[in-house]
């Protein structure tokens, strides 16, 4: 027969006093008495089934970093015990009592005192942490939106970047909803307390907690899947990072509990626990960067490792043999076959973005090279944003230059390209071999070799290959 029982993530908000009390009374009636309380798990021990009254109260001066109950808290508990209320379990400021007497005097008998106490406790714990989390996530979202605005093609085509934009939003929605609910409750509770009436209830929204929990599970899976699509190395790196973060979480909890066990004062526990978190974060970041730098030449983390590497003038160079939709041989006749062709494609539900290049080895400097980028816009509303990304990148320094030196895209004839719009790059009034070609759902930017003369036939071949790539 089991003597203990655990409820993982019971999803009751600690301010849901009546909800928690009713649940614990049900459990006690079934022979399970609350024994230990934490944010993630409630532990029960087997007991005689009893009809008990439970009460959830708050002691604002208590802290999860205290080595034990403070003198004030012990006095508070003594008063409760004198009125028949025995402590069942506690977690920082939350104190849960039970009483066998159905007609016992409630722990709180003055609504205004009760309201003031709850407000003090909420300000100190719930409101502070929620506001801090909200500020942090808003900064994160603001930064990601700024990234989308300034570098939309890269950001919106990359699974990681998209996650970074979206993963905070459900949390924000929950925080804002909870804060709004709390402040609405606070207003109603104050009115009730001033009238001497019982405080209104503030119940948990359990479905919202389930949703947040589900989302918290989806995010790491999405991250792992995005990493898997990049390379095996990235998948291992991401899995390792997630494991390290979990380990860091566990270690910080272990440090806090160990210091409490050693009866270290609150300030020492806070200093050591946060010191452990900071040290592990900095150490983890340093380790991650070292791992990335150490493996940067090996191709271990890349989505397509080089087929070979070679030395030239004391440096190691990589050569690739990726399939690319348009090759130099499609445009001009060349007598060279040691090309390095590289394709890097990122895809998300919004965009597919590919960067392609064909270059000779470094020891064949007279051979031409070819570079192009293709964006397939799956979400039509992003088309202009992506197009402007290419144009504004070329024109990014014009505000610091006299107009005659401007670097810009100018519209040119579309016929050879069979496109809606075509732009050619002009630098200081001189045309260069760079074109931006716009089809209805696709944008391509092509950089031909600088000394080629681009003929209409070359334009047509390029358009045909890139449009159907």
């Amino acid at each position, binding site marked *: 027969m089991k003597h203990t029982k655990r409820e993982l993530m019971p999803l009751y908000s600690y301010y849901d006093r009546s909800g928690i009390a009713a649940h614990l009374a049900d459990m006690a009636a079934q022979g399970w008495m609350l024994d230990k309380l934490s944010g993630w798990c409630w532990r029960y021990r087997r007991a005689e089934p009893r009809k008990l009254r439970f009460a959830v109260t708050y002691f604002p001066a208590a802290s999860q970093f205290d080595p034990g109950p403070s003198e004030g808290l012990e006095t508070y508990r*003594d008063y*409760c015990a004198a009125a028949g209320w025995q402590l069942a379990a506690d977690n920082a400021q939350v104190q849960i009592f039970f009483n066998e007497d159905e007609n016992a005097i409630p722990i709180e008998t003055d609504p205004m005192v009760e309201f003031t106490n709850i407000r003090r406790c909420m300000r100190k714990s719930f409101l502070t942490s929620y506001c801090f989390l909200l500020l942090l996530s808003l900064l994160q979202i603001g930064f990601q939106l700024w990234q989308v605005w300034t570098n939309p093609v890269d950001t919106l085509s990359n699974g990681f970047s998209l996650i970074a934009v979206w993963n905070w939003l459900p949390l924000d929605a929950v925080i804002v909803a909870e804060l709004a609910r709390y402040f609405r409750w606070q207003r109603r509770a104050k009115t009730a307390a001033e009238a001497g009436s019982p405080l209104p209830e503030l119940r948990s929204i359990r479905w919202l907690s389930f949703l947040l929990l589900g989302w918290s599970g989806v995010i790491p899976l999405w991250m792992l899947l995005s990493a898997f699509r990049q390379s095996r190395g990235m998948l291992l790196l991401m899995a390792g990072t997630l494991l390290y973060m979990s380990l860091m979480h566990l270690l910080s909890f272990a440090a806090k509990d160990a210091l409490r066990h050693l009866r270290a004062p609150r300030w020492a526990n806070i200093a050591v626990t946060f010191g452990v978190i900071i040290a592990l974060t900095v150490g983890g970041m340093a380790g991650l960067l070292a791992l990335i730098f150490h493996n940067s030449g090996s191709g271990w983390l890349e989505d397509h490792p080089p087929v070979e590497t070679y030395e030239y003038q004391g440096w190691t160079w990589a050569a690739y043999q990726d399939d690319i939709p348009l090759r130099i041989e499609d445009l001009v006749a060349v007598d060279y076959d040691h090309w390095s062709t590289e394709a890097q494609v990122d895809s998300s539900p919004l965009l597919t973005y590919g960067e392609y290049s064909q270059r000779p080895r470094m020891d064949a400097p007279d051979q031409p090279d070819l570079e192009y980028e293709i964006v397939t816009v799956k979400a039509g509303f992003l088309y202009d944003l992506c197009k402007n990304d290419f144009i504004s990148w070329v024109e990014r320094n014009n505000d610091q230059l006299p107009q005659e030196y401007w670097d810009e895209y100018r519209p040119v004839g579309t016929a050879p390209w069979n496109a809606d719009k075509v732009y050619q790059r002009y630098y200081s009034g001189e045309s260069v071999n760079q074109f931006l070609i716009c089809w209805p759902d696709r944008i391509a930017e092509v950089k031909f070799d600088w000394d080629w003369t681009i003929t209409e036939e070359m334009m047509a071949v390029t358009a045909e290959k890139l449009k159907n790539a």
Partner: protein
Amino acid sequence: MAREKFQTLTEQMFYILLCLRRECCGTDIMVQIQRITQGRVSVGPGTLYNLLESFVQAGYITETKVEGRKRSYLITEAGEKALEEEYRRLRTLAADYEAQTGRGGMEP
């Protein structure tokens, strides 16, 4: 400001101060109030703890003795004054009632 905080005393505040005209510890206060009011007024342990803390901060009572976890309190001059003012306020209310209704004493 102490007076602003306790402009008027609630029943529970009134009886706590009244009990503390004699040195008394927290748990005894709950029993005494029950006895004085014959069960009409009860102070919950949480409310008692918080009110005692507030009264100490406001200077209405003072901690006189700490024996382990048992703390004893005694009313101060400021507390006596607050208690007396509340008494006078209640007397004024009663007098106004009597003057307006012509009824006095404990008559219904």
